[in-house]
């Protein structure tokens, strides 16, 4: 296992390092001069040059990259080029809310996906399977910006039971906070829930065909015990893999969901920063999103290898 980890972790770090270069290089391709934008529309060339020097944009690209990377690693994200605000503070404010949203979505995805997946995997009744199958197909395919607007239309406009958008910290006021969280979290969780349901159903069907379950039936185990203590643990490993990848994708999905529900998270910050040409914030957040994806993927691989020893011996 340790040998597998020793092989797997450096390659993830290499991809992360290459991705950081890609983010840095791509954002530097962006048209528009951040120094000119930061200095304002009426600035003279001398003022722009002074601004460029102040922002460190006249250093060589290599030293700019290294300075940026050092800042990222030490947690010093610097100041926004145009607004001048502390990026660390902006990101901290938004990140808590995004984590709240994605955590809610992960819980819902596991609950809904788990229930639907068990239902589809176990039930031999055709109507049950057909309905669950259609529901997961829809939940998987319907984009978040469609399901989100539909949720607002039904639960906030036609039957006004939940707020259409906004945010209240769960820590400050849990009862109000949950009301704001339900719709965005549900919206973000649907595609992941559907994916989990499908994988779990396939995996359960395979396990249920195994001989040891027939033995279980023969020696008179209760169905519930048979399903949850004997079948489910053996069906979980392939599902775990997909859960990790789904969480990694949620950060991208959060950009849209936060826009629908006016949720003040890093997704909104990223979108606004692109529109405002705040290149340094964009660069920081993109690296963050890519890093989260790569690290989650790596953890998933390690967990998978831990559960299933066959993985470790593959090249």
């Amino acid at each position, binding site marked *: 296992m340790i040998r597998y980890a020793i092989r797997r972790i450096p390659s993830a770090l*290499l*991809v*992360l390092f*290459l*991705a950081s270069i*890609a*983010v840095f290089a*791509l*954002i530097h*391709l*962006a*048209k528009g001069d951040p120094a000119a934008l930061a200095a304002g529309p009426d600035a003279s060339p001398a003022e722009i040059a002074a601004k460029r020097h102040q922002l460190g944009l006249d250093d060589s690209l290599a030293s700019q990259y290294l300075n940026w990377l050092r800042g990222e690693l030490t947690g010093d994200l610097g100041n926004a080029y145009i607004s001048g605000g502390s990026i660390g503070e902006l990101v901290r404010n938004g990140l808590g809310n995004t984590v709240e949203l994605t955590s809610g979505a992960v819980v819902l995805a596991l609950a809904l996906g788990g229930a639907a997946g068990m239902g589809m995997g176990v039930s031999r009744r055709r109507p049950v399977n057909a309905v669950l199958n259609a529901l997961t*197909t*829809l939940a*998987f*395919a*319907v*984009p*978040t*910006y*469609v399901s989100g*607007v*539909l949720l*607002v*239309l039904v639960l*906030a*406009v036609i039957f006004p039971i939940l707020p*259409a958008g906004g945010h209240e910290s769960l820590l400050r006021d849990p009862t109000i906070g949950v009301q704001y969280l339900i719709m965005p979290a549900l919206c973000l969780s649907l595609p992941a829930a559907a994916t989990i349901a499908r994988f779990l159903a396939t995996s359960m069907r395979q396990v249920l065909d195994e001989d040891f379950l027939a033995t279980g039936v023969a020696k008179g185990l209760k169905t519930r015990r048979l399903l949850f203590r004997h079948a489910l643990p053996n069906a979980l490993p392939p599902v775990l893999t997909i859960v990790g990848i789904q969480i*990694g*994708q949620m*950060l*991208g*999905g959060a*950009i*849209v969901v936060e*826009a*629908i529900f006016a949720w003040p998270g890093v997704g909104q910050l*990223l*979108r606004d920063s*692109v*529109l405002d040409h705040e*290149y340094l914030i*964009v660069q920081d957040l*993109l690296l963050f*999103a*890519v890093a989260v*994806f*790569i690290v989650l*993927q790596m953890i998933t691989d390690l967990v998978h290898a831990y559960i299933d020893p066959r993985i470790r011996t593959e090249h």
Partner: protein
Amino acid sequence: MATLNVAAPMPVTPRQHRIRWLFGSPIATAGIAVVVTLFAAGLFAPLLAPFPPNGQTNAALQGASTTHLLGTDEFGRDVLSRILYGIRQDAIVAVVSVPAGALLGVSLGLLTGLAGWLDTILQRIFDVMLAFTALIAGVTVASIVGPGLPAVLVTVAVVNVPLFGRITRTSVLTLRNRDYVVAARVVGVRPIRLLVRHVLPNGVDPLIVQLALSLSLAVFIEGAMSFISLGVLLPQPSLGNMLQKSINYLDRNPWYAIGPMVVVTLLVVGFQLIADGLTHRLLRR
């Protein structure tokens, strides 16, 4: 008790085979019908649309009526007409970006078969590209080229490159040791010709399934980027930017939202159904 089907299948001509292959699954046929109808509606938007897409009137946010079947938006523009023109953005992305990304991805995927070091480099490049999930890639591209339809076109193409690249690489790995490929190599077929003429045609099935999935993804990305103001820019209509605006007027004219929602869903699900049907026919024989 299942009965054995011993009757030999009727011989089919290559052309019949091609048609059966596409329409053989009822799911895929339904998907094709939905998608073709909607794209045709977009193509013929100038003929079908009852009003010009940007014709503003004083009749803002009216509900559905016989003149405006889906009502009007906040500038009194006919929602149905804007939807028909909005479909065109998706059609452009589907026709331009998906084939471009697929072509590049397949080419790079074939290149992995030429040399070990090339394979290693391309694998790492695909890994880095995949770490940019669809919307993160969209944000990156939009911050480079600026928000707009071009950003959507580039994003969809870029996102597809590693998807097609990986699939092609897998085919190359599994097929290149087959007897017929080895035989071709032995008689002196050059490496590139070997990959393009001998390996690729036999690895085409999973690529076709991916093509259908990628078209679904393309519609999704266009909508998502336009929804967060990084894609198709107003006043140009797109399904995504209509949905974005409609959310403020759900109580006045819900059809403003329901129309684009239904069309986006039909397109995305339609392509997905085609992919499901093809998977069944091509990959699980």
